[in-house]
């Protein structure tokens, strides 16, 4: 079997490996080598509106480094066939590479077993899988599901659909003015009818890192399983599902420098075993007659049809890439960016940051007084700066702060302090235009 990890030689002629062990390719003598990392992302070299691209929309989707692009190309050129099917060389190879990627994901989140990792199209499908597989089987009329104000629509709407179908109720954990969950209120929401908790690990709109470990322990003490939406956490901090003790953990590959159309659901084996299948079809069965179909074992029970094989292998390569840099090094660099950006933006009169928790990851949501976020976004784009504007698929958060929308800068490990300076200059320009 070929090695999934494919860190290609850097095209830059002056590339040198630094310290030989531990710190990985990102660091030389403990310094985060952001310029060397940037050189591996072709798209970061383009110009927008005649200016160098300043890409600060990483919470929506991150960019892909050359080693991951190369891995996708190599798979299509040398290894592609359908998996779990043929006895021929290519099918065996593709199957081995696909399953190796599953192993990479399992190690990335510290799952006990590889069969606890299910490939999905992304976070949204992972949550829908749990709603159909767990919710429709175990949640009934009068039961209660606890969600939070911070949830992305993808961790609200599936549960509303279930509640409507079953006659269940949604209870919502409120937040304070800093954008932090009110944990006392969370604990008071539990009743004998509480059957499930859906909780974001990190808020996509505000960047708040939620105290999920304690919240999970509280739910478990009452026998209630917890799903963590990790879409905004997995790219920014080391995730350990055994330490968190969550029942389910979901994230999307394209926010981790991988391709779109692939993501994963981690589920405790015991939970996955007792759930019903989500989609029916090939690969998720052991045997089929018109009288009776026997479902396959996990994880295959939840992977009907031909999956996006190349994307899964690409995601494995992306995680190898991130792991080589080191999630702790990534988190430290991004925290430096966030702290610097927060301090700089706070010096601008008339600019208000939404989400001021002490525990945040990589997201800076802000309002420029008197200027609609869409105008902010269009003007920043004229300076080559990409930010997200709108409600960020988190309308309950917008309603809580009584704003229709915000502008959101979100950082990745390949962003620089100079790019933060460009953002601040861009906001100053917006204020000048609208003065």
């Amino acid at each position, binding site marked *: 079997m070929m090695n999934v990890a494919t860190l290609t030689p850097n095209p830059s002629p002056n590339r040198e490996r630094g310290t030989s062990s531990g710190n990985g390719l990102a660091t030389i003598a403990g310094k985060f080598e952001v310029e060397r990392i940037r050189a591996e992302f072709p798209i970061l070299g383009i110009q927008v509106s005649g200016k160098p691209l300043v890409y600060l929309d990483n919470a929506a989707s991150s960019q892909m480094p050359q080693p991951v692009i190369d891995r996708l190309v190599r798979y299509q050129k040398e290894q592609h066939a359908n998996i779990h099917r043929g006895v021929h060389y290519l099918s065996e190879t593709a199957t081995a590479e696909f399953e190796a990627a599953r192993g990479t994901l399992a190690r990335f989140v510290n799952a006990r077993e590889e069969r606890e990792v299910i490939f999905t199209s992304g976070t949204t499908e992972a949550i829908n899988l749990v709603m159909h597989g767990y919710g429709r089987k175990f949640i009934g009329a009068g039961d209660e599901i606890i969600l939070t104000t911070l949830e992305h629509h993808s961790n609200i709407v599936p549960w509303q659909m279930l509640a409507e179908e079953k006659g269940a109720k949604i209870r919502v954990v409120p937040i304070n003015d800093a954008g932090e969950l009110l944990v006392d209120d969370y604990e008071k929401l539990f009743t004998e009818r509480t059957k499930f908790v859906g909780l974001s690990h990190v808020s996509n709109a505000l960047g708040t890192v939620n105290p999920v470990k304690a919240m999970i322990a509280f739910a478990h003490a009452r026998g209630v399983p917890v799903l963590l939406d990790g879409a905004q956490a997995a790219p920014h901090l080391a995730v350990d599902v055994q330490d968190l003790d969550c029942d389910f953990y979901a994230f999307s590959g394209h926010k981790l420098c991988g391709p779109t159309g692939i993501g994963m659901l981690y589920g405790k084996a015991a939970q996955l075993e007792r759930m019903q299948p989500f989609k029916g079809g090939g690969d998720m069965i052991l045997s089929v007659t018109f009288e009776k179909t026997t479902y396959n074992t996990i994880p295959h029970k939840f992977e009907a049809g031909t999956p996006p094989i190349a994307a899964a292998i690409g995601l494995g390569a992306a995680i190898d890439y991130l792991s080589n840099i080191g999630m702790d090094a990534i988190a430290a660099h991004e925290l430096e960016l966030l702290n610097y950006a927060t301090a700089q933006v706070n010096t601008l009169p008339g600019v208000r940051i939404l989400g001021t928790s002490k525990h945040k990851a990589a997201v800076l949501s802000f309002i420029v007084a008197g200027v*609609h976020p*869409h*105008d902010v976004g*269009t003007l920043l*784009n*004229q300076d080559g700066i990409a930010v997200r504007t*709108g409600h960020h698929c988190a309308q309950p958060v917008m309603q809580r702060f009584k704003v*229709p929308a915000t502008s959101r800068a979100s950082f990745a490990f390949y962003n620089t302090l100079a790019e933060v300076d460009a953002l601040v200059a861009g906001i100053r320009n917006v204020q000048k*235009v609208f003065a």
Partner: protein
Amino acid sequence: MADPKALYQEVILDHNRKPRNYGTLADASHHADGHNPLCGDHITMALRLDDDRVGAIAFEGESCAICKASASMLTTNVKGKTRDEAELLIREFRDMATGKLDVATQPHHLGRLTVFGGVRDLPTRVKCAILPWHTLHAALNSAGSASTESAQDPMQAPIGDA
């Protein structure tokens, strides 16, 4: 490609700062609400038809600068026009914003409204500029409301997702 900077010309910024005909109209004969659920823009448009002419018109609401300036300039351009003349402006404005009308080479009646021509290169902003015109169309046709996302909306333009 038009220079997108042209979108934030002084005339647009001025109408955003000091919107004309902003407020309500006590003796309105026609009115409609316009809503873009994707970005939260919301405006109301009220007008009084004297015989077949727009005798008075006013708008108010919460929106981005492009939408507000478009609404403000709409009111100054439509006042005194007949219903048919207003509908012609609505069609021409929509066609300009969606790239179907090239104001540089084709005849039109848009005058200074051509400052909004730059939105055609910014698909997510087209709806901002068009919303007031959708809403005027709904008011003139007593539809009561307009939405950039309604399949029933006769002004629905095939434009990008915001």
